[in-house]
């Protein structure tokens, strides 16, 4: 599944949160310029227990609790990155990055360009993201498209523990600002993770299930929902090809286009609000590409409802694509019913 993994590496079962922690530990051990910053990432171990015991292993100078100051905190990380440190800044929830848009969008993303290439900002912003926890409108958003709209930023969305580790290490190795959207519902998910240092390249999607009847492009939790749907569709003889997007910016055009040329059908599934979302861009890039001639049906999108995430659990589920929704639309596509 992960071509970048050295086959001889020891592979263990780790949770997504543990895999991210392992990546941070490797970074802290191997590079004295790496510092972690964020709210309650020290003794508390982070709101989702991602930093965990790193404070005990690396001390408060490397694992820094910030005051509740997102704009300032993110800006300090940007300034430190500009001058030689490599900060990994954790937002407690991706929603709070809205308070720091100035430093991320106006500063971090543009400094290299505005200074004519004379400066760089190798900062990583980690953002627990997505709905499904009953935390309602201000703690459940999916901002991938927001940040994906900004030249100068790279945006990744790991869907498995191995990807979470590999993409974070790739983000750290990247000389530019990278936003990592970690899905809250995946933190406890376990999966095989190679030991040691490896990189899952930014900008590369992965075909996680091959198929010839319909292409489903999904990211983060939606990859798992698409795979569940694909399993059920396979019983009906419909073979869905599932692509794990992994990176929202820059998009992996080649993998998407190659798949659509094979299947002739495209379904984009994403948790962010449907309108002007990630799937809109994927649809457009396919429509603009040589894959257009291969399309046998209109492109379909399943995205978040045109509403904030509601508190009531039934409404909350209804507000984002679920596996049966994916199954239904993929089936319609495959059967030429769209």
């Amino acid at each position, binding site marked *: 599944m992960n071509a970048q993994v050295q086959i001889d590496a020891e592979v263990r079962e780790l949770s997504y949160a543990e895999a991210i922690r392992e990546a941070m530990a490797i970074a802290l051990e191997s590079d004295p310029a790496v510092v972690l910053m964020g709210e309650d990432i020290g003794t508390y171990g982070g709101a989702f227990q991602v930093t965990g015991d790193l404070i005990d292993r690396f001390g408060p100078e490397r694992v820094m*609790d910030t005051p509740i100051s*997102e704009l300032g905190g993110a800006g300090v990380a940007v300034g430190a990155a500009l001058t030689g440190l490599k900060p990994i800044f954790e937002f407690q929830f991706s929603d709070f990055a809205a308070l720091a848009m100035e430093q991320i969008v106006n500063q971090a993303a543009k400094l290299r360009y505005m200074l004519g290439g004379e400066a760089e900002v190798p900062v990583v912003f980690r953002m627990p993201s997505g709905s499904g926890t009953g935390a309602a409108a201000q703690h459940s958003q999916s901002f991938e498209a927001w940040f994906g709209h900004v030249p100068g930023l790279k945006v990744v969305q790991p869907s498995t523990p191995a990807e979470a580790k590999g993409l974070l290490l790739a983000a750290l190795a990247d000389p530019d600002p990278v936003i990592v959207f970690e899905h809250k519902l995946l933190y406890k998910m376990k999966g095989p993770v190679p030991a040691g240092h490896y990189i899952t390249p930014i900008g590369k999607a992965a075909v996680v299930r091959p198929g010839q009847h319909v292409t489903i492009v999904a990211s983060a939790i939606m990859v798992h929902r698409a795979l569940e749907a694909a399993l059920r569709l396979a019983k009906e003889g419909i073979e869905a090809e599932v692509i794990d997007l992994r990176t929202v910016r820059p998009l992996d055009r080649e993998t998407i286009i190659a798949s659509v040329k094979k299947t002739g059908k495209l379904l984009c599934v994403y948790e962010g609000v449907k309108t002007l979302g990630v799937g809109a861009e994927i649809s457009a890039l396919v429509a603009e590409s040589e894959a257009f001639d291969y399309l046998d049906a209109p492109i379909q999108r399943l995205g978040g409802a045109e509403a904030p995430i509601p508190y009531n659990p039934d409404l909350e589920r209804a507000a984002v694509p679920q596996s049966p929704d994916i199954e239904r639309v993929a089936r319609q596509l495959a059967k030429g019913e769209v």
Partner: protein
Amino acid sequence: MMRDTTENIPFAISQFSPAQLREALRKMHLIRLFEEGAEESYMRGLIHGTMHLSIGQEASAVATCMELTDADKITSTHRGHGHCIAKGADVGRMFAEFFGKETGYCHGRGGSMHIADVKTGNLGANGIVGGGLPIAVGAALTAKRLGRDDVTVCFFGDGANNEGAFHEALNMAAIWKLPVIFVCENNKYGMSTAAAYATAVPNIADRAVAYSMPGVTVDGNDFSAVAEALHEAIARARAGEGPSLVENLTYRWRGHSKSDRNRYRTKDEIEEWMTRDPIARFRAELIAHGVLGEAEADAVEVEAKDAVAAGIEFARQSPTPAVTEVTKFVHAEVAA
């Protein structure tokens, strides 16, 4: 009632009528019992998500709202159940919201973190730390521009004082002399982060100097001390003299939220603060000053218990919102 300064009578006892004081005690019990009921309902799976309990901080909520009318506004926080009840909300509709029901204050869309009761002047809890601070200034601007004499009380935590929004809000309130009272509930921690670590000044009230407004720090578990500080700040606001900052020193007995393991504070510290129970203290004070007898004080608590039981029952019986109505309330409904 005039304040009696001849004897050692607490401010609140001389300022408020026995009926008002009895009602204040009832509300403090109601907050505690409401939150215990919410906690139990959460344990039984009737409530999902998370919640932030204010058990131990009841005097701060109730005493702060003592002189407010429904025309006066409050902005609240993620730890807002107490503020909501203190301002006059019905616990049945609050439970209904927690249970995600259509009869809830936010029709099941908001939950604990967005609990509000606009009719009693509660503009809402907030999922964003510091989110309510500029909004409170805006509410005070409305009152001033429209020539009304209502005031706005802005609740916020010690953690929130390090958000840029806090500093921007206080400055604007001061330069425009707006009728707003900033009430910091300093419970020593923002989640796990000690105020002593995260804040450059020893008291949050010290920040007031930078914005040319009065700042006082009071014992937030002493009902009368809080009521007195608010009395002065509200009078100043209503007189058009501008904003004030009041800091209520208090403590939350429970963890920050449902997932807190309390690794950042000691059991001794928690237990020590539990001996400073604001409800027991207020009750004893009312009895000592002859406002209530023991039996009457007990009856007040029973009343609150009954209200909580009835509220939970109301919430359980209430209908859930239709899943087809996810996008209802995104915009104003325009008549076709």
